[in-house]
């Protein structure tokens, strides 16, 4: 249970960062925390204490006490997607820095509403 609570706390921290922080880099860090919190949650869903790796050796018998492998595959996919998003975010933040000379959101404001 405590692990789930930790996930929720991490999600809250990430959302807080994205909403409150005024610095592009900190917003990106907040997004990273948010995303890893959800990935952690996915991994925890399939975890089982003292569970075995679900590798079938004897075909007639299922693995007696295995962890669920599917969430791990999902997490792997989600991490790769997250990497793509993160790389693009950092690239755009860098380009913005080149244009404006600052990471401060308050000063990067050409667009209204």
């Amino acid at each position, binding site marked *: 249970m405590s692990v789930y609570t930790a996930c929720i706390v991490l999600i809250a921290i990430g959302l807080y960062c994205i909403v409150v922080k005024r610095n592009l880099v900190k917003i990106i860090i907040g997004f990273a925390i948010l995303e890893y919190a959800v990935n952690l949650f996915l991994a925890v869903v399939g975890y089982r204490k003292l569970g075995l790796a679900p590798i079938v050796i004897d075909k007639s018998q299922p693995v007696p006490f295995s962890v669920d492998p*599917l969430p791990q595959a*999902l997490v792997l996919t989600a991490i790769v997607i997250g990497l793509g*998003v993160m790389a*693009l975010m950092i690239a*755009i933040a860098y380009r913005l820095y080149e244009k404006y000379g600052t990471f401060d959101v308050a000063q990067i404001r*050409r667009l209204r509403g």
Partner: protein
Amino acid sequence: MMVVPLFVAIPLGLAFLIPLVSKFWRRAGDLVANLGTGAVLCLALYSIPLISGRPIVYSMGGWRPPLGIVLVLDGLSLLVLVCVSVVSFACSIYSISYMAKFTSKWKFYTLFMLMVTGLNGVVLTGDIFNMYVFFEIAAIASYALVAFGTEHEELEAAFKYMVLGSVASVAILFSIALLYAKLGTLNLADLSIRMGEAGDLRILAFTGALLLTGFSVKAALIPFHSWLPDAHPSAPAPISAMLSGVFIKVLGLYAISRIFFNVFGMKPVYSNLLIFFGVISIVVAGLLALRQSDVKRLLAYSSISQIGYIALGLGTGSPLGILGALFHILSHSTGKALLFLTSGSLVYSAGTRDLNKMGGLQERMPVTAASFTAGALSIAGVPPFHGFFSKLLIIMGLWQSGRYALAALAIVMSVLTLSYMLKVEKGAFFGKIREELKGVKESPATMLISMILLAALCLGIGICFPWVVKLLIEPARDVLLRGLEYSHTVFGT
């Protein structure tokens, strides 16, 4: 059977072929991308007669559902696929000339094809995690495409869009994790069966709320809209057309209707929320649109307002309302894509987006002016254009389900639509031509061809609307009306 995976495979394969071929021949992207979108369009039209009766279910890699990933082509998927492929074909023709001023056009085409891959994948897949993956393929491509100009505004809009869009994606991923934790499956059909067995759980209500939030951000329903009026105008015109035309519908409204009608079951709380979001989107975005002097920004607000109509129609839950909403997906996708393409043509030739700096362009750009008029009348709902029939059906659906006040409101707001469209007409095309615009020429032929194509569709679908409704919209409506029987059609029981 074999056509289904091609919708994803063709654009995905071509997306990676384009950079390879462009090394040797610089203009290869034009040819390959247009052939690709054209082929997808042909496939979509070819599969219309195939799905009469029962949907096509394709198991990827031969793994039967619920273990493997399935692609499901039913009436609803097909309707949205046709919208996507028509608009993407028009946009790729348009890009030949329009994108010529940008360096590295092949990068544009690669991202464009990836976006089409993502959209087609979302529409076809029958697996919720697979849907998330396609969501992200389309979304990441669109973030990069919004920033394609790499000027101040583009970058800023892209960053804003990206943060909001990614948070929405994380919400969707989180709800997928919750669903898997509770129900132990990812297949949409299997989810709906197990959800029925599990009954009314509080965790499922929470998941539903998370999913609705995520999809509403993608659909840009007010109050989740703040990214759209920045992102859509900043993108290059063909991408604005794709984003406003099909993107918000596929990622937002298609996903909402698939998940909430076919998996969760349309409970009153969800339909009331949809109606609520729909009404405030229509009113607030409509009023905001009236105040804009930037053509593309005005059209972007108009998109939010029209998305509100679709949400309203879906929320009624009555057969006519749903029929109207689905028809409005078709009419708004072609109409709004056309309007964004014409606004791009204005930017291309007159060099400005500001309505106060234009005027009298009708005589210089007759084709652009005529096709803008077709699109504007269609979105505003003037017969015989197709927007009239879709709005009429939505209003009749509202009336049928006893929501008389909302029906009246929808009629009043469609007058408002007409008034902001007339504002553009007056600002850009009517009146005397300004001195500095005397040298303006009509846009190149390829841009005109795609605009004429879409304008012809606006008129043609309107005139042939009984046949279009029978052929495309009614099968889609039946999928939504049958609701939870979706699982039977996928498992073939």
